[in-house]
């Protein structure tokens, strides 16, 4: 990072810093402005003092094209934030598009936008998972409408699988949320996963913040129950619902075992018509199995409910439990503690994702890296050395 940014971030004055290195503040300003280049001894001192954040490259290499936003951009985005607060759906929708975009410029705009948003402590973020067809969208429709009747504003982020081969997607969840999708107190946004489940999930947590800024106080995140996205989504919601079909056994359900262990609420959906009895048996099975599952929340145990999303059965009981869950955890403070921990996790997740992205889309295509790998293939070089050299290049990467 540039020295100027470093000093700003850690709030160190030029005078103090120059003293520590043992140079005049005038020389420091010249280094910062690029008018002069620091010599080797000074560079080493700066490197040490900044914990490696500012190194020689930051002085010698010209900086990558600036991701700084123009003032016009900033003004636009500030206006956007105001509009979002006023509840303008168009701006909210556009904000989510910025967040989800793969363009660097959009990401910079999104970052700026996010920096203008407040932290919202009153919202409830609800994760919902289950295999395709279990009835997640239908459940959200029924449940969401009853919440709106209670005065809530409900938002839904639905993560749809994109077809891997073509990259395109069909997003049809709204057809199963007919009432909700036309209600003025609801906002539904299906997002294509682009085959990158982790990546979308990162964007999801940012989208949640946009929704909260717009005044939505109950936010559903619908995922497909195949495993990858769920763990990530688990780490961005306050309560995690798993929907199951009335039929025994996890294997039959096609849902990953680990996912059921994360559940705060297990819902046996479609407990109606001729599936009613099977549903009851399934409920008992899970109630029994639950004793064996270690509790992840320290202050409340998961519960199992029967539900029919199409016939609106069991909805009130589920809501009562969710309210109880929320109250206990808010009162004890664990609700907020979890959110703080989630932020830390988010940092590491983002770093992990970015490195992964860098490796997949950048590093692998570098000529030097390709050459090293060729050498290894020809037995001219050993694997350990090769990995070490390539990894070092990541640490030093500046572009």
């Amino acid at each position, binding site marked *: 990072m540039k020295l100027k940014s470093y000093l700003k971030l850690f709030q160190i004055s030029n005078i103090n810093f120059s003293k520590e290195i043992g140079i005049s503040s005038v020389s420091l300003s010249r280094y910062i402005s690029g008018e002069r280049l620091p010599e080797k001894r000074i560079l080493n001192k700066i490197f040490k003092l900044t914990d490696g954040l500012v190194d020689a490259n930051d002085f010698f290499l010209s900086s990558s094209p600036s991701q700084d936003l123009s003032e016009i951009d900033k003004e636009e985005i500030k206006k956007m934030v105001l509009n979002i607060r006023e509840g303008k759906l168009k701006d909210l929708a556009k904000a989510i598009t910025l967040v989800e975009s793969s363009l660097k410029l*959009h990401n910079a705009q999104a970052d700026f936008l996010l920096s203008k948003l407040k932290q919202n402590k009153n919202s409830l973020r609800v994760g919902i998972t289950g295999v395709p067809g279990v009835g997640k969208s239908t459940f959200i429709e029924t449940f969401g409408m009853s919440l709106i009747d209670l005065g809530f504003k409900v938002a839904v982020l639905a993560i749809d699988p994109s077809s891997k081969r073509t*990259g*395109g*997607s*069909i*997003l049809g969840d709204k057809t199963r949320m007919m009432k909700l999708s036309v209600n003025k107190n609801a906002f539904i946004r299906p997002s294509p996963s682009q085959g990158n489940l982790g990546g979308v999930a990162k964007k999801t947590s940012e989208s949640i913040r946009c929704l909260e800024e717009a005044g939505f106080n109950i936010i559903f995140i619908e995922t497909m129950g195949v495993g990858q996205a769920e763990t990530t989504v688990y780490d961005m919601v306050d309560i995690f619902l798993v929907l199951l079909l009335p039929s025994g056994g996890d294997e039959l359900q096609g849902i990953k075992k680990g996912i059921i262990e994360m559940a705060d609420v297990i819902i046996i959906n479609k407990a109606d018509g001729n599936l009613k009895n099977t549903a009851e048996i399934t409920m008992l099975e899970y109630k029994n199995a639950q004793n064996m599952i270690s509790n992840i929340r320290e202050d409340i145990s998961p519960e199992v409910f029967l539900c029919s999303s199409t016939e609106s059965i069991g909805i009130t009981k589920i809501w009562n439990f969710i309210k109880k869950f929320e109250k206990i955890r808010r009162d004890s403070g664990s609700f907020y503690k979890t959110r703080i921990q989630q932020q830390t996790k988010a940092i590491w997740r983002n770093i992990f994702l970015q490195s992964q992205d860098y490796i997949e889309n950048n590093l692998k295509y570098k000529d030097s890296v390709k050459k090293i790998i060729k050498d290894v293939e020809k037995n001219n070089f050993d694997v350990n050395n090769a990995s070490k050299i390539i990894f070092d290049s990541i640490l030093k990467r500046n572009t």
Partner: protein
Amino acid sequence: MDRKKLYKGWEEQASRELRDKNLEDHFWETPEGIKVKPLYTEDDLQKISHEIGVPGLPPYTRGPRATMYTNRPWTIRQYAGFSTAEESNKFYKEGLKNGVMGLSVAFDLATHRGYDSDHPRVVADVGNAGVAIDSIEDMNLLFDGIPLDQMSVSMTMNGAVIPVLASFIASGEEQGCPREKLTGTIQNDILKEFMVRNTFIFPPKPSMRIVADIIEYTSKKMPKFNSISISGYHMQEAGANQVQELAYTLADGKEYIKSALERGLNIDEFAPRLSFFWSIGMNFFMEIAKMRAARYMWSKIVKEFKPKNDRSLALRTHCQTSGVSLMEQDAYNNIVRTTIEAMAAVMGGTQSLHTNSFDEALALPTKFSARIARNTQLIISEETGICNVIDPMAGSFYVESLTSSIVEESQKLINEIDEVGGMVKAIEMGIPKMRIEESSAKRQARVDSNEETIVGVNKYKPTEKQEINILSIDNEEVRKRQVSRLQKLKNSRDKKNVESFLEKIKNAASSDGNLLEICIEASKNRCTVGEMTSAMESVFGRHNLSTKTISGVYKNTVKNDGKIDIIDNELSKFVNKKGRRPRMLVVKMGQDGHDRGAKLIATAFSDLGFDVDIGPLFQTPEEAAKQAIENDAHVIGVSTLAAGHKTLVPLLMESLKNNEASYIKVICGGVIPPDDYPFLYDLGVSKVFGPGTNIQEAAIEIINLL
């Protein structure tokens, strides 16, 4: 000569003619998956699995009557209806003077869906795609001067079947025709509505109960009336191949038998009054074979319910030539297509027939196009001598062989349905609809890559534009007239009385009273179609279809002739510029339930790499705009086929504008007369894609547009 030797000789001769090609290469695999050989012989006749028999006797493969057309040709029954009851009445009378032998009423979509003309959700639908019927008063006008005791009337009504049939019966009685004298058919086939036709109102369970109410009532009180027309027609039009059409229709029929039996009816009380309805497309021999296979299979199916009367086993059918086979481009070709299809229907032994007009892909027929359509049948019937011989195709090596193949293939599909527990269950699971959409996507992929020829569309395209006069309906005017007539009715009737009838309907709906019976009285007392429907709706609820989609079928079938690469290339440029894939919301607004095109566009575009949002059926323009804004679609793709575009598209544009969202582009597709293009472009629509659009070419255009 010895037969074996004979065929050996043919094979050698054929191989010589083919030179280096193989005989096997000339086998044709039909869309149904049936392998058709270049030559059929006596040997194939030995292998057939169905019985041929004689006409008029079980298993009725050769026809439900012993004499067939030699005694009386099929009934020329043209499906028609538009604008107001008065206008349609005039049209019917004109037809009857010119060779039409039976009426067939096409209702508008508002009526189909149980809304009176003054309902806010139907501003774009009144009188457009059929005739508007709000009450018995309209019925009286519709049949004014047409004696119902002499005229057989077929009515395509399924969703609002109770109030409409009730108004018809009541109107007959006001005209002086007692109900037992009424002849004709009510479609009353709700299962295929959930699958392909989309004019359902109530959820499946109460809907099936209504079907049974009607079967029960008509079997007791209207002995000459067909209580149901079990329809494959709409399946083929929605994309089903012939085997699917046959199998799913017969499976529907089985389901109706079961629910009538559950009512406590005896099989012989109602089975003879079940009728069928097929679509007849361009695969000439396949269609003939399908009709024969159907009769054979149905007799076997009904047999299992142990009827005593043989008439219960006989399948009688109406046919309509296929509308989907008709094209907007080079439209006069459609006359030829219809003729070929009509021939197949006749060779297949239909009891009545509708022939489509050549302007089918443009609008409702004009007087002129309707006349040619009618004459097509008259010419076949009166100029060719075809009527003099019964089932002329019987014994044909090919046709009998094909008949057997169809029997076998459809039996497989029926077994699959039986395994999941019958058609109601299968429909709930979405199995048949999915299969049909797959066939539809495959068909489009074959046409888009020129593997299937459509003359004038993907081959031998005309170089000059043809001007064709089309019928255009002033929907606003019709609606005003209907609304004022409704107003008058409402002012003149006894309000208390109406209330008490609506209350009775509610009670019948929540108990087990016969809904048809009570609604006949209600219509006589001037309850409207919409009011009667609402009364039932308050008990049953209104059904929403959950839209399922398929993916991959289009891409797997289409041949890459370079267009796919262009699209890939354009898409990656797009993503690099915009940070995401092009996102299109496909919408269906108003009561237009034609979803084949919309579903196809959605699945094909997503296969090609778009992110596609698909809206529910029956959206209002405001709802569509809200969804597009929330999803931040780049473009809204309006699919419109029922002539609502001139009302709905302006409302959509306005709604986008009111939400400061005019940055979202709008394109339209479907049945839109070329004369309306300028109107749409003036509104700000970016592009209109008519019938016959090549999807890949459209995709390229749309990416460029964005």
